[in-house]
């Protein structure tokens, strides 16, 4: 890991400003350190020569001035650093969010590219049959909030010390060399030894720690595992017996950690030892030469005061190293995400084959008559997978008809919904759509603007996501300007009005994070209300009643039947429980679609 990530400097303007301010501040601090040493040496030597406070008044006054200036400088530096850190964090956060949602950061005005599959992939929907994306979304949230806060220390404490570590030793060396070359030689020899020894020790420690890492990890996690499993232990009457095991494992953990620490602390030991020993050597050397009259008192004092200053920034950098590396690691994680390609968006694909320009925008403006949809030997293979999720699917969806897709989990039926929602694009074959009125041409779906297409669709996922907003706000998801009456009407149709009314604030009740207030069946009905309010001609339903208890399932079933009236519907379910609601049933198995059964 580098101490200063060049990508961090390149991407965030706030970082460049901060670096300039930091370097300027460090130059000033270096000057003040040298001035203070010189002034103190001058004053003490003067007093030794018999000068009184009056003779030395300007020197003493200057010491006070230096003290004030250093205080002002450290206050200013800390404040400025925290301000830059806030700005840099914000820049990184926005890039991160823009990247993973497929939107653009607002520093690129006029770009209205619709959200791409990045965000969909994140929450594990793009590959619904084996989606594992949700944990990544959690990681992103942590990274964008608390993870990036580690940059505070990095900016406010580490970078300034790094600049000082480069400036102060060199300046001290120059000044000491002018005053007393032998001391300068001692400092010049020991200074570079410190990083060399630390690197050697660090290298050795790392090899050693890595071999113990797994063991440490296992021992470290044991206590958590036992406490989490306490009720299981209790059931099997093993709870009390575990106390001894906890002590044994924790002791083993201590012994292993201590043997690692004995080596790990060597690095700090080398730093302390060399820097202090060097000062001691300089002190003895100038003391003896002073005794033989080869040096004057004031110069000797100046060298003695400056010698520790040469090592101080190095020690500070060492002390802040680990805390700051957290900041660097967080930034690195952000860059890793930002630089990871997320695959083509629907629009990119359209642009690539030149069809975007010829897309008949009229389609978007067409009245809510449902399109006729045709899948021509559509295949889909997710990036990084060998086995295709769908292969050679031919399917025709007629306006106003309802199709049930059944099949075991992992068969590819949810992937079909993803294709229709254009969360992902077919890797072979194509999807065509046709305006049902008159005899319009079949148009490739990829030529239709994504946003316009999605306006024709209402989707009720298996696990609808509810936002930390009011009930009404959640229902308005696809129709932000709908009036409360319209919202209520949609909720009534979705069999949701009754339970919403008894919530503490009715439609104004906040649902809490991820809709924590509601049961699975209620959440499903809120999602149905969204679909009613959206009033789209095509409705996609994914396992609408799976995992619901009978009462809730019955209510959802009533609402779904109502929603499907006069609309094109596609229901995905693992069994044929919906068969009497639909017109056609097709079985999906291992990415292929079986024969359709007309009912």
């Amino acid at each position, binding site marked *: 890991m580098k101490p200063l990530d060049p990508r961090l400097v390149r991407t965030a303007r706030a970082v460049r400003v901060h670096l300039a301010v930091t370097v300027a501040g460090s130059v000033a601090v270096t000057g003040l350190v040298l001035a203070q040493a010189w002034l103190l040496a001058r004053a003490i030597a003067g007093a030794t020569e018999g000068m009184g406070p009056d003779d030395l008044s300007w020197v003493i006054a200057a010491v006070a001035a230096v*003290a004030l200036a250093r205080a002002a400088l450290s206050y200013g530096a800390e404040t400025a650093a925290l301000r830059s850190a806030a700005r840099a964090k914000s820049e990184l956060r926005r890039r991160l969010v823009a990247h993973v949602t497929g939107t653009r950061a607002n520093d690129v005005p006029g770009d209205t590219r619709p959200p791409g599959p990045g965000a969909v992939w994140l929450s594990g929907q793009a590959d619904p049959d084996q989606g594992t994306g949700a944990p990544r979304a959690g990681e992103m*949230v942590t990274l964008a909030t608390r993870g990036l806060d580690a940059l505070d220390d990095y900016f406010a404490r580490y970078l300034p010390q790094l600049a000082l570590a480069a400036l102060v030793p060199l300046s001290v060396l120059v000044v000491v060399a002018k005053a007393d070359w032998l001391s300068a030689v001692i400092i010049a020899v020991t200074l570079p030894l410190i990083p060399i020894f630390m690197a050697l020790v660090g290298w050795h420690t790392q090899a050693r720690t890595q071999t113990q890492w797994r063991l440490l990890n296992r021992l470290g996690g044991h206590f958590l595992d036992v406490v*989490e499993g306490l009720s299981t232990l209790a059931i099997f009457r093993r709870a009390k017996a575990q106390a001894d095991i906890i002590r044994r494992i924790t002791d083993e953990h201590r012994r292993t950690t201590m043997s690692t620490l004995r080596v790990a602390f060597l690095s700090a030991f080398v730093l302390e*030892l060399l820097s202090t020993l060097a000062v001691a050597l300089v002190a003895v050397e100038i003391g003896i030469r002073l005794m033989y009259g080869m040096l004057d008192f004031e110069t000797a004092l100046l060298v003695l005061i400056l010698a520790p200053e040469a090592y101080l920034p190095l020690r500070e950098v060492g002390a802040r190293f680990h805390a700051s590396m957290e900041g660097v690691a967080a930034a690195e994680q952000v860059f890793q995400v930002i630089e990871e390609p997320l695959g083509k968006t629907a629009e990119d694909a359209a642009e690539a084959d030149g069809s975007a320009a010829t897309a008949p925008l009229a389609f978007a403006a067409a009245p809510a008559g449902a399109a006729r949809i045709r899948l021509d030997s559509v295949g889909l293979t997710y990036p990084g997978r060998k086995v295709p999720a769908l292969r050679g699917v031919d399917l025709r969806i007629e306006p106003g008809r309802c199709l049930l897709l059944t099949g075991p989990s992992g068969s590819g039926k949810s992937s079909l919904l993803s294709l229709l929602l254009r969360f992902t694009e077919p890797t072979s074959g194509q999807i065509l759509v046709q305006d049902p009125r008159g005899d319009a041409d079949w148009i490739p779906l990829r030529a239709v603007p994504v946003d316009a297409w999605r306006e024709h669709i209402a989707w009720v996922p298996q696990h609808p996501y509810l936002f930390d907003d009011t009930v009404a706000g959640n229902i308005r998801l696809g129709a932000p300007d709908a009036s409360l009456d319209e919202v209520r009407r949609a909720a009534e149709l979705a069999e949701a009005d009754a339970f919403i009314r008894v919530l503490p604030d009715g439609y104004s009740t906040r649902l809490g994070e991820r809709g924590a207030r509601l049961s699975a069946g209620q959440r499903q009905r809120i999602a149905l209300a969204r679909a009613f309010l959206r009033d789209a001609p095509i409705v996609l339903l994914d396992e609408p009643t799976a995992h619901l208890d009978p009462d809730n399932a019955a209510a959802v079933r009533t609402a779904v039947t109502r929603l499907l009236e006069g609309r094109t519907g596609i229901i995905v379910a693992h069994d044929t429980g919906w068969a009497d609601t639909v017109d056609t049933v097709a079985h999906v198995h291992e990415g292929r679609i079986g024969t359709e059964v007309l009912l």
Partner: protein
Amino acid sequence: MTDTAPSSTAPAPGRDPLWRMIALAWPRGTRFALGVLLGALATGSGIALLSVAAWLIAKAAEHPPITALSVAVVATRALGVSRGVTRYLERLVTHDAAFRTLADVRVRVYERLARTEPVNRFRFGDLVSRLVSDTDATQDLLVRGLTPPLIAVVTGGATVAFCTVLLAPGGLLLGAGLLLAGAAVPLAAAALGRGPGRRQAAARGELSTALVDTLYGAPDLIAYGAMDSAVRRVAAADDELTRVARRDAVLLGFGAGATALITGLTVWATLLLGVAAVDGGTLSAISLAVVVLTALAAFEIVAPLPAVAARLGAVRASGERLFDVLDTPPMVASPRCDREPPEVSPESGVDLRIRSLRVRYGPDEPWALDGVDIDVPPGRTVAVLGPSGAGKSTLAAVLLRFRDPDSGTVALGGTDITDYPLDQVRRVITGVPQDPHIFASTLRENLRLARPGAGDEELWEALRRARLDHEIEAMPDGLDTEVGAHGMRLSGGMRQRLALARALLASPRILVLDEPTAHLDPDTRDAVVADLLAAAEGYSTLLITHDLAGLDRVDDIYVVADGRILQHGSHEELAAEEGWYRDAL
């Protein structure tokens, strides 16, 4: 589950959690004292090095014979070495002591938890992991919270005393400077930081909620064309957080500025006093050099202290949460008498009879179970069916002795279960809880939990009955397969079957299966229920479920809603009669 977390009614002991945490660490006090001594020697060495060196040079300036300097020369070199060595030893000693304390504290916390079994607090994984990290915070208290101030007091006292001997006003001045920089400034900075901390936490919370909604809800947002407005909400929250942070930076810079100011002014004032004293003849020139350079070096003592205030605050918060859990009274009262459970032969089994059982989670809470009568005759399979929130899991908690009934009886072979010691009941009744914990160990260890010392044949027999034997035979390491944290290397169905095999190994008389199919997808659900019921053949079994899969195989079904029994009968009877069950079919 209907269970809401019980309100913490524990009497809050008046003592500060910080003191209680220190009390936990007290047995290792000697080691920490040694650590403080070594640390004081290390810091002291650094300061003494400069004082001795100043004396050496000032003395050398008088061109004395070399013998006059020899002691100082040796002392300077010794101090140059001792600082590094003592610091290294100090870190080893304090860390070792902290780990030893950790072992003590973990055992104490665990023993307390094992006694009270506050399992209902443990349903949420993050609470448990927080409890564990709160326990581990004791290490921080000692290494980073208590050791640095103690070292500062020792070295600060010694340095001030030394300077006072040379120049009384200078020494007192240094003492005041150190106190200000070491105590007043960190405290003031912490006080100033509280407001910004609160404001930023609030702004960060808003941002975090907006981000969670945007990232987790992305498919819904995109499908409904609402992603742009969600991203705008994130941007607005981000703006607010950045604005607050930039504004508050003005307050947060205080500590750094004030420390630098006090350091500089103390050195200045010492110089001023010293020069005047030399002029007045009350201080030798040599002592002037020593006093000024000592003052210059002395502020190293207080450098670690600003971090301490923040650390202690965090540790106190940890302590508060920790003791809140530890002070929870047990949910289960001790048995009234120490009775042996009825001895029964495996063939005959034992009769479980529940009468007018009522349970609630607090005096103001609704009844989770409100007068329930259930019979589980020996060897029979009984299902308790109901929607989520019906009180089914409360029933499981009562049977597994995690809760006492508020009224009514649960009789095991004719005697109330509250009359037996807990473990005696669990020898007879055991089962698979709703979220069985799989330990991060091998399959063998996970199974042996239920029967320590069981041979491989017994383990395989249990696995066979749970229909897990073929899958495990196919694994290269067989029973020695590591299952990973929470058994994550196994599929959901395998975890459920492993938990069942474990329950079978315990060979109870009554098997309680609490929602064995929750978290399983519909395809594997039916297979798991069928296997569970087949494996439970011969046991008295109580199957608790919200789902009708497999209920045609059980002997008796109780339909529960809102804590009461709505219907009771066999599958055929219930399917024929008007009511909830038939509607649900």
